[in-house]
C-alpha cells in the first residue's frame, strides 16, 4: 500500500513543479516571518520573489547546526510561541541544545510522512505496531506514535528499554511490526534466546529500524535472527524527526519524501553538488514546514543518491544508508554524542582535563555500549574505594545529564590511553564491520 500515491508516484517533471511552487512560497514565508532568514537573505542580496524554480535552490545560503545553536532557543522560530504546539530538544555539541518547534500543521505533516514511511515498510491498516523507540524529548517515539495514529494502526507505546517486558508484550499482543534501533533488535534476539523464546517464531515480521547507522550485514543478521523484513528509516530532529526517508521491501535505498524534504548531495569541501551515485553530504530543505523551516540544512551525514524509479512504483529519489559523518559525532541508540560533551563534563568535575577515551562497541548481544575511560590522576585518586566509586558515579551522572545517555565509566591508570602526536585518540568505534 502507498499512503499518498498521488505524490509518492508523481511524474518527476510534475514533482518539480510542486517543489518549485513550494520553494517560492517558502522563500516568501521565511523572509517575512523569520528574522534569521530575513537577515540571511539580505546579506546574500537575495530577493525572495526572485526564487521561482527548484533549480534556484543553489542560490540560497546553507543553514548549519551552528546557526541553530547560536539562535537557541527561539531565534529560528517563524511563528509566535502561541502557535507552537510541541517542542522537542536534543543535546548539542556543547552548550546549547538543538530545539525543534512544531505547529499544529507541522504535526500533521509529521504524521503524514510517518504514515507514508510505515506504509512504505509494508504496514497494513489492520496491523499492530510495538514502538520501542524512546518516548519523550527524543523524536523517535512520538514520531512513530503520530504516524501510527494517522494510519489507524493499533499502537503499543512500549517506549525503549525493559527488554523482558518488550518480549512479553510481543508474545501477549502479537504485533507484526517492530520499531526500534537496529542494535536493540539484535540485543532483544539474544535476550529472547536466553529466555527460551525462539526469535524466528516471533510475531514481528517487519522491523523499522533507525536512529543510528547500520550496515547491510547487520540487516542480514537481524533478518536471520528474527525471520523478519528489516527496513531502514532515516530522519533527524532538526528536519522533523523520523519520517524523512524510508526503505520499501525492495531494500534498495531509502525513499526520501522529496515533495516536502528537498534533498541535495554536495561535496562538503567545495559545497558543490555531486553527480547522482557519488558520495556527499546530504542537504535538506523543508519545503512546507511552518514552525522552524530550514533552508539547505547541512545534515553532516554522508550518503549517495539514486534518482531511478523504484520497482515499488515510488518515483522519489532514494538515498543510501548513511556512510559516514562530516564531523566527530557518534550515534548511540539514537542519541547523538560529541566528544566535546564528554570533555565539558570531565572539566566540570575536577576542574582539570584528564585524558580520556570513548570506546563504542556492539559486543554485548548487539546493544551499543559506550565506555568512557578516564585516566586516574593524583588529584582524582583516593585510597578509599568508596570515593573512587563516587567519582565514577559522578562522571557517569554528569554525562547522563548532558548527553542523556548512561555510559560505563572505567577508571584507568595514568598514561595508559594511547596518544597519537601528543593528543589522545578520542574515539574508538569498534562497531564498524
Amino acid at each position, binding site marked *: 500500500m502507498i499512503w499518498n500515491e498521488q505524490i509518492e508516484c508523481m511524474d518527476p517533471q510534475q514533482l518539480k513543479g510542486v517543489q518549485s511552487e513550494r520553494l517560492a512560497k517558502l522563500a516568501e514565508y521565511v523572509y517575512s516571518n523569520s528574522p534569521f532568514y530575513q537577515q540571511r537573505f539580505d546579506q546574500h542580496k537575495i530577493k525572495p520573489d526572485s526564487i521561482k524554480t527548484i533549480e534556484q535552490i543553489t542560490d540560497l545560503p546553507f543553514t548549519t547546526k551552528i546557526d541553530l545553536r547560536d539562535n537557541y532557543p527561539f531565534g529560528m522560530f517563524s511563528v509566535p510561541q502561541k502557535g507552537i504546539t510541541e517542542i522537542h530538544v536534543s543535546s548539542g555539541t556543547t552548550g546549547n541544545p538543538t530545539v525543534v518547534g512544531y505547529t499544529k500543521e507541522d504535526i500533521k505533516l509529521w504524521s503524514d510522512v510517518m504514515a507514508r514511511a510505515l506504509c512504505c515498510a509494508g504496514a497494513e491498516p489492520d496491523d499492530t505496531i510495538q514502538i520501542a523507540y524512546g518516548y519523550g524529548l527524543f523524536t523517535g517515539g512520538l514520531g512513530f506514535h503520530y504516524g501510527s495514529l494517522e494510519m489507524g494502526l493499533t499502537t503499543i507505546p512500549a517506549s525503549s528499554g525493559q527488554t523482558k517486558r518488550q518480549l512479553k508484550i510481543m508474545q501477549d499482543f502479537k504485533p507484526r511490526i517492530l520499531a526500534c534501533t537496529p542494535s536493540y533488535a539484535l540485543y532483544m534476539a539474544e535476550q529472547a534466546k536466553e529466555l527460551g523464546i525462539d526469535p524466528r517464531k516471533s510475531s514481528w515480521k517487519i522491523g523499522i529500524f533507525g536512529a543510528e547507522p547500520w550496515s547491510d550485514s547487520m540487516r542480514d543478521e537481524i533478518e536471520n535472527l528474527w525471520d523478519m523484513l528489516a527496513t531502514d528509516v532515516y530522519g533527524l530532529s532538526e528536519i522533523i524527526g523520523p519520517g524523512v526517508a524510508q526503505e520499501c521491501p525492495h531494500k534498495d535505498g531509502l525513499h526520501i519524501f522529496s515533495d516536502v524534504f528537498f534533498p541535495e548531495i554536495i561535496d562538503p569541501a567545495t559545497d558543490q553538488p555531486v553527480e547522482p551515485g557519488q558520495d556527499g553530504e546530504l542537504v535538506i530543505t523543508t519545503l512546507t514546514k511552518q514552525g522552524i523551516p530550514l533552508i539547505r540544512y547541512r545534515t553532516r551525514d554522508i550518503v549517495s543518491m539514486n534518482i531511478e524509479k523504484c520497482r515499488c512504483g515510488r518515483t522519489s529519489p532514494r538515498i543510501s544508508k548513511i556512510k559516514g559523518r562530516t564531523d566527530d559525532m557518534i550515534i548511540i541508540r539514537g542519541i547523538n554524542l560529541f566528544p566535546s560533551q564528554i570533555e565539558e563534563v570531565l572539566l566540570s568535575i575536577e576542574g582539570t582535563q584528564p585524558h580520556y577515551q570513548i570506546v563504542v562497541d556492539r559486543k554485548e548481544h548487539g546493544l551499543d555500549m559506550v565506555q568512557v575511560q578516564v585516566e*586516574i*590522576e*593524583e588529584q*582524582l*585518586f*583516593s*585510597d*578509599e*574505594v568508596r570515593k*573512587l*566509586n563516587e567519582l565514577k558515579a559522578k562522571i557517569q551522572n554528569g554525562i547522563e545529564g548532558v548527553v542523556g545517555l548512561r555510559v560505563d565509566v*572505567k*577508571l*584507568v*591508570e*595514568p*598514561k*595508559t590511553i594511547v596518544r597519537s602526536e601528543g593528543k589522545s585518540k578520542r574515539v574508538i568505534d569498534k562497531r564498524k564491520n
Partner: protein
Amino acid sequence: MRLKQISVFLENKKGRLQDVCSLLGSNGINMRALTIAETESFGVLRMVVDKSDQAIDLLRKNDFAANVTDVVAVEVEDKPGGLAGILKIISDNDVNIEYMYGFVEKFSDKALLVFRFEDTDHAQRILNENGVSIVAEKDIQGL
C-alpha cells in the same frame, strides 16, 4: 605518631601488582604491610614501606597514580583475643575505622595492625590514653 601509607591505583590487569613490587624492590624499598581493596574493574593497593618519600616519588615517576595517607599502626599481642581488646577500646570510644589490615612480624612476638581512621588525631589520642603501643615511622624503617 602516624605512618605514611602509600596507595596505588591498579587496573584489574595481569602483572600490575608485580610491576609495583619489582619497581620498589629493585630500588631497595621494603614493604612492611600491604593489602588490596578490589572492585570489579580496579583495585587499590595500600601499603606501608620503609622509605615512603622515596617510594612515592618513584611510583609517580613511573606513571602510577599514587597517594599518601596518614594511618596508625599499633602493636598487638600475637595471641587469641589480641585484636578484640583493641577493637573494644576503639568502639567504646566511638572511633570510626575506614579500613584496617594486619601483618605479623616474623622476628617479634607482636602482630602489626594498620588502621585508617576517619579522625586520625582523635583515634591516636584514644589509643594513647588506653596504653596501646603505636608504631612510629622510625620503627618501621628499622624493622
